[in-house]
């Protein structure tokens, strides 16, 4: 039986989020450490924390008994509307926990920071932004749209939502290249702002003076369906975007064009 002194537990407030407790474990979590684990959570609950991140980066062993105790601690937090998540698991420990189906009970995070960010995302509707600028060339569009799709999936959006987001980004960026000034010195700016309820996509480019009128006509036709012209046929991409999005706005000027799309999360 391992000496109880082998396990060290420290509970403190998160540096970036005061209502989150970070419980750092060090050593072997085995049957001999159950009492100490339970006591640390008693203290934490007395301090009115309901969300806890278990920092497992320095854990060398997790027995099934200790895992059961952690599950019990989690249940206590769930009853209060909170949660207990695990962070910083080594590859070996993660594999063992997965073999014990612990991944079906606990959320795993790469580190404490990711776990706290996830808490803010879920409980405080925190939004996160990604800025991208790339040359105004069609070859760059496929990697850009796949990036948008991967980000959406990473943040928990379903496959269907992620694919629609990819389609929206693809169409808008293609239009930005085709209707903007092409060339190595011209860039397209993409801003993605995502939270757990929606994603906002903003694409900005430099207008091509020779194409700006065509773009204005296309964008007008999107909001007045009975206007028909040859240019409208080329505007089917933006019409598709308008169908897939919940909100859609184009601002055209002689300087640049900005397309702003909002898509609500459906899955």
């Amino acid at each position, binding site marked *: 039986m391992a000496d109880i002194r082998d396990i060290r537990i420290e509970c403190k407030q998160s540096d970036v989020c005061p209502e989150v407790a970070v419980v750092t474990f060090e050593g072997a979590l085995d049957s001999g450490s159950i009492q100490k684990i339970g006591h640390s959570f008693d203290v934490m609950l007395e301090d009115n924390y309901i969300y806890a991140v278990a920092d497992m980066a320095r854990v060398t062993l997790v027995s099934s008994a200790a895992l059961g105790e952690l599950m019990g601690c989690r249940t206590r937090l769930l009853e209060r509307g909170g949660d207990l998540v695990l962070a910083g698991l080594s590859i070996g420990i993660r594999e063992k926990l997965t073999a014990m189906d612990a991944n079906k009970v606990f959320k795993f995070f*790469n580190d404490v920071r*990711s776990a706290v*960010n996830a808490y803010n995302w879920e409980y405080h509707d925190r939004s996160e*932004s*990604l*800025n991208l600028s*790339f040359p105004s060339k069609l070859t760059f569009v496929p*990697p850009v749209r796949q*990036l948008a799709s991967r980000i959406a999936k*990473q943040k928990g959006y379903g496959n269907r939502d992620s694919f629609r987001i990819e389609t929206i980004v693809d169409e808008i960026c293609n239009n930005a290249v085709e209707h903007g000034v092409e060339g190595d010195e011209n860039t397209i700016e993409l801003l993605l702002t995502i939270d757990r309820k929606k994603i906002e996509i903003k694409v900005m480019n430099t207008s091509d003076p020779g194409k700006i009128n065509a773009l204005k006509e296309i964008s007008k036709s999107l909001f007045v369906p009975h206007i028909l012209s040859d240019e409208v046929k080329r505007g089917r991409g933006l019409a598709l975007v308008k169908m897939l999005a919940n909100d859609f706005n184009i601002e055209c000027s002689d300087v640049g064009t900005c397309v702003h799309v909002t898509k609500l999360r459906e899955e």
Partner: protein
Amino acid sequence: MPGKGRRYLMSESKPQKVKIRFPGDLEYIPAVRKFVAELLLVNQFSSKCAYRSEIIIDEICNNAVVYGCRTADSQVEVVCVMHEDRIEFQVKDAGGSETDLKRLRDAVAAEESGVKPILDGRKSAAGLGLEIVRLLSEEVNVEVDDNNLTSIRVIRRREDAGTCGEKKAV
């Protein structure tokens, strides 16, 4: 000319520059490194070069997030400049603690001098990650300005300059 004593092919076509800024969270790194790899592939770099560049980006961005992002809204910036004969990466973060900055500088200096970085009994991510980056690239430079803004610049030569994609058997 970048680098000490290194010569690179003067390119007639302009370099392609892509910049991405993302939240300082490890969860974003897989998508960002895959994005960089795909950028290289569509710009006619080989899949081998793209994969090794993905490893470089993964290592440096991991360090940037773990050691260089200390506030909730910290971000990491990655700039990729694709030349005809090489690719240049620059990764910037807000800067870590004095201890971590010193470890980073020591790790880079140790690599340059061929001396193994001293590990303090646990894995030094800055040390081991930069070993991998240096193995896969021609140059690694670290700059820290007065505001602790940390920038790591990596140059990787294009292995198959003049060819497109995988070599085919004749």
